[in-house]
């Protein structure tokens, strides 16, 4: 009798620990997932096609410093930044810098025409139906995410940057 009572106690307390632990644990993790992205947070994963139809994921670049830039042909500061990113990409490529420019769900011809005009060599990714843009909680364009090699966000820049700004930020990113 005493033994079975003990077993019941232990079983119930373990069940409480498991269920309670799970319930409390999920709220703790949900806290960091919710709300807009912040510096130090984890950027949402994406899986997008580039202009050649290759699938690229953010996780492909783990261990490398990554610049994720959201752009559109309809946004003049984005257009101005694109060749600047090209120069920065050429400058820092050897240090392992990755530039991923995600187009804001425009159509193929528009993107192709634009890219050919500026001869861009870094991957241009095609968002579909604003899905990735939404998962990043974008409010205005351009927005650029500087991601550390450990996969956390080092800096978020909303709005256009001068080439010197970009250079400075990338330098900071590479030192991390």
């Amino acid at each position: 009798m005493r033994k079975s009572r003990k077993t019941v106690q232990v079983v119930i307390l373990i069940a409480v620990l498991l269920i309670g632990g799970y319930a409390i644990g999920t709220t703790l993790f949900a806290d960091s997932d919710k709300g807009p992205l912040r510096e130090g947070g984890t950027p949402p994963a994406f899986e997008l096609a580039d202009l050649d139809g290759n699938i690229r994921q953010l996780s492909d670049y783990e261990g490398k410093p990554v610049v994720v830039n959201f752009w559109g042909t309809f946004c003049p500061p984005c257009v101005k930044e694109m060749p600047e990113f090209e120069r920065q990409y050429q400058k820092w490529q050897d240090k392992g810098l990755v530039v991923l420019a995600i187009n804001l769900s425009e159509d193929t011809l528009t993107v192709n025409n634009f890219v050919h005009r500026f001869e861009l060599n870094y991957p241009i990714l095609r968002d579909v139906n604003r899905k990735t843009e939404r998962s990043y909680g974008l409010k205005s364009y351009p927005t650029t995410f500087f991601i550390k090699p450990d996969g956390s966000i080092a800096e978020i820049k909303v709005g256009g940057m001068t080439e010197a700004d970009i250079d400075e930020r990338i330098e900071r990113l590479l030192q991390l």
Partner: protein
Amino acid sequence: MSLIENTKCECGHQNAVGTVLCESCGKPLEEQKDTAELPLEMRYDGVARRSQKSNPNVIDRVWNFFSSVKIAIYLIVLTFLTAMLGTIYPQENTFVGNFDPAVYYEETYGLTGKIYYMLGLTHTYESWWFIGLLVMIGTSLVICSLDRVLPLYRALSKQQIRKHLQFILRQKTVFKHTIEGDTGHWAEQFGAQLKRKGYRVHRDGTALLAEKNRFSRWGPYINHIGLILFLLAILARSIPGFQMDTYVSVPDGDTVQIPDTNYYVKSEKFTVEFYKDEELPDKLKGTARAKLYETKAVLYECVSGCGDPTAKPELREVTRHDIVVNDPLKYKGLKLYQFDFDLTPRLNAVHPVLVDKKTGNVYGPFDLPMRDSAMQHKLGPFTLDLYANYMEFAIGDNGEPTTLSRDPVAPAFIFSVKGPGLDPAGEPYMYFPMQKDKVKFAQDTINKGIADKIEIRVDGMDNVDFSEASTHLNVRMDRALPYVWVGAVFSMIGLLMGSYWQHRRIWLRIDGSELSLGAHTNKNWYGMRADVAGALKKVGIAVDPKSLDNGGNNA
């Protein structure tokens, strides 16, 4: 087993530590002198709670903590108080769309808003400590119930019929009498009367136990089972895929994926109807009062190519429904409610023709969607190569054509046209599908010479494909809801069992010719006394029910 306290009753029964009334004969154990004459404490029939042990270890201490009703009440009060804190300002999850709580609360409510946000009260009900409180209440509910229901069950299922005289005479309803004649016969007659009142009667010589509605004692525990189910269902909502509350916006004719699901929803048409003036009362005349919002929705499931960004997902229709307010589309726990709408029209495609101005021949029509059009259109002897397109055409600061947005507000197309009478290398032709843009940007002037040779134009509104409106749908899923209902039903059944029936018991023993009768119930003492007095009257003893009252609270 070594017991520190001697808990052996004079009847020879060995009781557990914490026992108030002997489990066998009912004699009060270890009592202070000043309470010796008062009616007995009959809670849980005087048995020890399971957790009452003489030398508790760590597990016992944790167990004892949760087994305490006092702690349970503190937990419940604390939960109520903190739940109130969550109602001061709107919670984060009541906002739709992109909003930054860090900014919003401070901007809207000032410093208190900022503090409110910093304390995490903007998501009170999802916070770890609130969920923690719920978990503790749940634990307390299980342990409190278990610790009391099992001993109570044992006590009630093996009741001794002949009780100690002290036990009988210290009940709240007591009757003493001297019986003339055969005591055995009297007991039998009295038992028969109680049976007619619905009691189960057990006899042991001249001792008698009559009992009624014992099941009502299980009511509170069934109620607790319901509450625990309810609580588990609420906690289960944090399991991925158990609960969803999101919004999708669907222009007429478009098919949009419902975020984080394999489902796509198409709006075939959104309709809004307003009341006519004659249908409205005077003071509302002239105002737009909606009569009907309706979305003709089709729900699809993705069958293949779902996660692949390069492939078009292959969709299979699963259901369709005309969604109106309070009549959502339902499919396997997924519900799509009419939420909002937007009446801004959007141009999707045109079907223009090409006119050879020299011969007057008309070629086409051809399909020209605003997005991702075919790169080449062959029309009779003419070939149109799409060179560029713009969604909202404008001339940029550098004098080059550009687009101001990605929505087809002022679309423009540049074709390279080859054909009879044209340069074999192709001549550029600029085409604005909307008449207002044609005029604004002077299409014919831009096109110069080629404008005299060919024209691309749309014949009639039949050849224009546009979305009149967008519908906004609220997508909800709550797999926990059926369990919440089951819990609520259990809880209700338990509540009814415990409230509408009372557990009544009557003990009596006849020593010589002295009758001692005691009766106990958990509520409605008036009814208890009426039962006793009624049965006594039937066997020829007239007694005023009030005189049976032996004092004590709630008597």
